[in-house]
């Protein structure tokens, strides 16, 4: 029974990983940019939510009303002001600049919030659960997290394939030059994509902060989980990132069941196994 429980909990935590991954996947899809600072931005969103909750007394989930727009606005400005200047010059400039961003964010958070761990308190939501079967309890929080991941990915999917903004995302991703011929200003489209990515980051950051303690140096680990989910699921496939997140979550859950020290390691091993057998991921988009 503990094994089934490990798998079920792994599936649910996979939703959180899918949210880490979705924003990463979105901007890679639109502008081929890999944001090394993605994980640190998630943690920054956690701190922002913490600050908002402490200043206003809002429930952590309600704080998203403030946190998500702020994060999106920051993403828009970051892309227009900095990241757009790194595109089209090879892989090093975006990599280095987002690496620098990562170091700045980590140390900035350390400076403002110190190295003490913090947590957001979501009240009864955190402790409530129901029994799926004897020995398998489903917590309301993990369930809500998974459901949110489904909604986020479905919304991104809808936006990408059924709205005019999504059409422009796909167009600049296909062919920047011809997109410009249509009157599309690619810099603004990229900025919109980054804003959207950071809105998802905000949601992920709030759930991260409710679920566990966080500190300024947690970012790189979250980046890696998101990255693994993207690669396992297959590049450019949003539902694939959910599958990737779930597989990662299950691998970690099963690993932890074998030996608590193997939790994260088991996820990495699953990632390298997929890479060895299916280098393009399990569900690559056919192109």
């Amino acid at each position: 029974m503990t094994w089934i429980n490990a798998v079920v909990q792994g599936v649910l935590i996979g939703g959180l990983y899918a949210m880490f991954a979705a924003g990463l996947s979105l901007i890679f899809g639109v502008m081929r940019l890999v944001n090394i600072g993605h994980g640190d931005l998630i943690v920054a969103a956690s701190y922002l939510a913490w600050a908002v909750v402490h200043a206003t007394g809002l429930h952590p989930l309600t704080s998203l009303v403030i946190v998500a727009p702020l994060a999106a606005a920051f993403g828009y400005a970051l892309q227009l002001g900095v990241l757009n200047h790194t595109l089209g010059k090879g892989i090093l400039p975006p990599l280095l600049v987002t690496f620098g961003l990562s170091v700045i964010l980590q140390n900035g958070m350390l400076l403002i919030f110190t190295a003490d761990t913090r947590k957001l308190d979501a009240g009864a939501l955190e402790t409530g659960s129901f029994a799926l079967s004897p020995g398998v309890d489903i917590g309301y929080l993990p369930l809500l997290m998974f459901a949110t991941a489904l909604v986020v990915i479905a919304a991104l999917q809808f936006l990408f394939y059924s709205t005019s903004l999504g059409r422009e995302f796909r167009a600049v991703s296909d062919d920047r030059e011809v997109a410009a011929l249509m009157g599309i200003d690619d810099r603004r489209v990229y900025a919109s994509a980054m804003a959207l990515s950071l809105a998802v980051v905000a949601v992920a950051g709030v759930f991260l902060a409710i679920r566990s303690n966080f500190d300024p140096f947690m970012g790189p680990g979250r980046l890696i989980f998101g990255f693994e989910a993207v690669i396992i699921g297959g590049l450019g496939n949003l539902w694939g990132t959910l599958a990737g997140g779930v597989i990662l979550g299950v691998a970690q859950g099963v690993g932890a069941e074998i030996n608590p020290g193997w939790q994260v390691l088991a996820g990495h091993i699953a990632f390298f196994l997929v890479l060895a057998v299916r280098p393009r991921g399990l569900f690559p988009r056919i192109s």
Partner: protein
Amino acid sequence: MVEPLLRVEALRASYGDARALHGVSLELRAGETLALIGANGAGKSTLLKAICGLVGQNEGRILFKGEDIARRPASRIVRLGVALAPEGRRMFPSLSVEENLILGGKARRPGPWSLESVYALFPVLKERRRQPAPAMSGGQQQMCAIGRALMSNPELLLLDELSLGLAPTIIKDIYELLPRIAAGGVATILVEQDVTRALATAERFVCLQEGHVSLEGDPAEHSRDDITRAYFGT
């Protein structure tokens, strides 16, 4: 004397360190059809790209309706009324046929062209509107590329390598539709490697050779040999 729709003055254009145009000048009146001919590498595509803002470094002037657009970004130039159907069609592969067309209308200029009128011109596009663009044949993609350019209701339409890689019957079909497009008053620059066909369609031609204008005028007033010489440089 009326100001021409387009006036290119001593245009030099470069890609990186390589210069492709060495001082090209030409004029185009509203509603006119101009054939731009020349061998491979003569600079025809570069000239079209320079006019619509896709070449990084332009020296000289490109006056469109009296306004210098030589250093404007492409996304602004289309709003002024210049549209290009690029060489190789360049459909957006992850968009459907209809989405390609809708994007062509993003500049939102007023005029006769809309989804309905483009579908009326190319009925086959309407049949395939839900399909992804790469699923179409080369000829259908070319129609879609023309339609996409028309959707912005341009005053100047640039058609690059219209018949490249297309079967002869398709080429014939497309050429038969060109007068219907010109009837709306849009001026056209036509780049075409089928020189005979281009000269038969256009009112005037400009021949480029190695980035210079080697000959221009009314197709009827120049002998075939003159044109061949201007074309190959022999």
